[in-house]
């Protein structure tokens, strides 16, 4: 069986640092949306998660 952590936010990628904080999850700051998309893609591929968009400038990577 594939065992691992599921249903957990693995990383947050944002252009607006004031919107996120605390919680013990790594937060990556991006200069603009393009960089944000690239960062989240890389992180998603490395961590094996899926990128989700909260539509307020915050992307997060979650494993399902």
């Amino acid at each position: 069986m594939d065992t691992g952590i599921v249903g957990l936010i693995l990383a947050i990628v944002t252009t607006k640092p004031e919107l996120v904080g605390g919680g013990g999850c790594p937060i990556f700051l991006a200069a603009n949306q393009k960089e944000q998309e690239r960062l989240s893609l890389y992180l998603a591929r490395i961590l094996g998660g899926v990128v989700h968009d909260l539509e307020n400038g915050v992307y997060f990577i979650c494993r399902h």
Partner: protein
Amino acid sequence: MRSDYRHYPSYPHGEFVHLSLGLIAAGLGAVAVPAIAKPDYTAVTFLALAAQQFREVRSIERETLLKLEETKMIRRGNDYIEGIARVFEARNYLVILSALFTSGIVYFGGWPWAIPASILCFIVSLRFMNGSYIGDIASVEVGTISFDNSMLKINDVVIMNVGLPFTREKIKREGMGIIIKPFNDDARLTLDTPGQRMAIMHDVVSILGSKVDINEGELAPIMRKQADQGYLAFFLVANEPDLNFCMEIIKRVPVLESARATSSKSYYGRKAAD
């Protein structure tokens, strides 16, 4: 002696194992009547012992499928496996019974009766082996894929949140959306079962393929329910994006025994429905 071969859809492995088991089963059934009639009680005892072995068939099948399941991208689900295992066991008994019947006829009636008897067995077996399919309990239609900002929707059913713009583009280009509408309340309950949904997804993906990869979950096939009306929306990014064939495949997915709902057969179920 009449042998019966059982080729379960989408299950090509172990055909030989089951063919030989079927032959053994047919042999067992066939010699039973002459052995009792002779009477050779040692042979009868051995027959009973051998027949017990067929109880093992189900667990063999279950174990194999569960082992294979671990390395599957899209899983069959336990319900489907249990269903397949049961079918294998039941069909072996069906073989024994057919052979028993045919050899009984031959023993008492002579060779000319064997042909009609076997034809009769064939028809009865076919009747027994015929389960119902998704196409019998639900209609399958094309759904339109759309995005509400980052939310992927098929018609009015929200499927998931897709973060990356280029993934959204890919889904718009290649994604397929299908709506499965149950005909009645029983069908609705059947389609509710996660096991049944997994079975549908597995069958479709095993034929059309899927672009999902290990560690890349965005393109995974997903099936979600419209909570108020009970129909299912099925999202898939297939290697062969052909909607018509996809719908045909879904219609031919068997309704799992363990998922089959019979609420309308119970008193309160009928009362609650109206």
